[in-house]
């Protein structure tokens, strides 16, 4: 039961993007298309998973005072791995994600999970936690990207959805579109939550 909870919570109740408002910069920057979103999502899942495993393994040997620099170094190592691998095998994706691959280092979700979860729990639970959070992150990113890509480009995963007469809402793939989309989505979520609460009571 508790294991299942570890996995599920990151996807729904504690969704890092919609609920905890963590790691917003890459969410907004890389949600211009679903492909980018999935690429970013998998990079984050990989780093999160690896760093959670390592942190959880070494947690008993790390002195409390210098744990943060050590966690950061661990994370930075995996980020560098992702960066190099992606540059080597997926150069296009690497180019379009650009700056935001190295910036995974400072993504608060990863350090946050290392500090709040992996540093206190066993390896198995930390893996579930990482998967849950990572999937939650990717899910949110993909949802936002879906809206932005369909409206802003008329495509989904690069596949055109409308006829040639559709004139895409360019704004959606520009920065204001990102802010407005995420604002509206969180608002919508709050609204449905609120409606559910009223129905329950």
């Amino acid at each position, binding site marked *: 039961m508790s294991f299942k909870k570890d996995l599920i919570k990151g996807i729904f109740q504690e969704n890092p993007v919609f609920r905890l408002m963590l790691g917003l910069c890459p969410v907004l920057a890389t949600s211009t298309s679903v492909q980018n979103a999935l690429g970013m999502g998998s990079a984050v899942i990989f780093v999160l998973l690896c760093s959670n495993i390592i942190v959880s393994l070494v947690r008993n040997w790390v002195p409390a005072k210098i744990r943060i620099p050590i966690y950061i170094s661990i994370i930075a190592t995996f980020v560098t791995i992702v960066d190099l691998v992606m540059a080597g095998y997926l150069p296009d994706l690497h180019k379009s994600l650009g700056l935001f691959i190295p910036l995974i280092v400072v993504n608060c979700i990863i350090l946050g999970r290392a500090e709040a979860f992996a540093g206190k729990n066993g390896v198995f639970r930390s893996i579930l936690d990482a998967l849950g959070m990572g999937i939650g992150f990717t899910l949110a990113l993909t949802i936002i990207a879906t809206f932005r890509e369909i409206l802003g480009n008329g495509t989904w995963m690069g596949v055109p959805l409308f006829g040639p007469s559709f004139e895409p809402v360019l704004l959606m793939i520009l920065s*204001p579109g990102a802010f407005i989309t995420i604002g509206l989505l969180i608002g919508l979520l709050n609204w449905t939550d609120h409606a559910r609460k009223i129905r329950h009571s």
Partner: protein
Amino acid sequence: MNQRFISASPHIHDNLNIQKIMVTVIITLIPAGAWAIYLFGLQVLWITLTAIVSAVLTEFVCQKIMKRPVSILDGSAVLTGLLLAYNLPPDVPLWIPAVGSLVAVFIGKQIFGGLGFNPMNPALIGRAFLMASWPVHMTVFDAPLRNNMPVSGIDSVTGATPLAVFKHMREILIHKSDLLPEQVTQAQQTMAELNGAYMKLFIGQVGGCIGEVSALLLFLGGCYLLYHHIISWKIPVAYIGTVMILTTILGENPLFHALSGGLFLGAIYMATDMVTSPVTFRGRLLFGVGCGILTVVIRFWGGYPEGVSYSILLMNLVTPLLDKYTRPKVFGG
């Protein structure tokens, strides 16, 4: 016992209310629109009506969804739609004003809580949205003029607004050395012609957005509003004054810059939008000056030929700070 009314003092009130303000502003805007219909043809009317209907419908639906009292009768949504339409080129397809009004009222206003709480001018939010989304529709002025565009030398340029021509010619004149001498001479001639076309600019025999062409009619409307204390002189005067002073300093013709583009529409009708402009004396002057500076910067160095609407939007962002830091000193303090 007789019926007694109880209320806090004061017990008498000025008879001006929000609805009257909105209606007066709308009425003073009608002549400029009528001129545009005369100049560009009947499609202008359909664009304007579409914008208004869409704005009012959006307001109605939003307020129904949010379970708030429906206030479409206060005229603010109509005004938003009208101002949005006035900021569109005269030949846009009708879905442009419809979408623009929807965004203007929904994102620009209702989502912040409706009238009085929107931090930025809704009509301009709508316009900026359209501008970013469909730049081609928003920047190409192909509508033929009734009396044929009187300024020559524009055949080579897409877009027929005087400011677009100005910008293009200025580019040519700046990069003189890279161009043929006859091109330069032609550009100089065009510039001279532009600068001499005061009357045409003033009356409005030029291309441009629906509501902005006739400086004269907008000016008259502004005078009426000033006379009835609906708007105050501070923002328009500071705004237009700053633009004229700055253009003079930059060695251009201040009258041309004052009369062309959306400056009159912006300075009189949109920068003065009460909700989004400062309330203090100094704040309003500084707001106008800020708008003026930004307008000139965008006109001269920016990516767009006209900067009025972006300047106002940008200054809207500064409004709370202006209000906060130009608070009047308490009497005797």
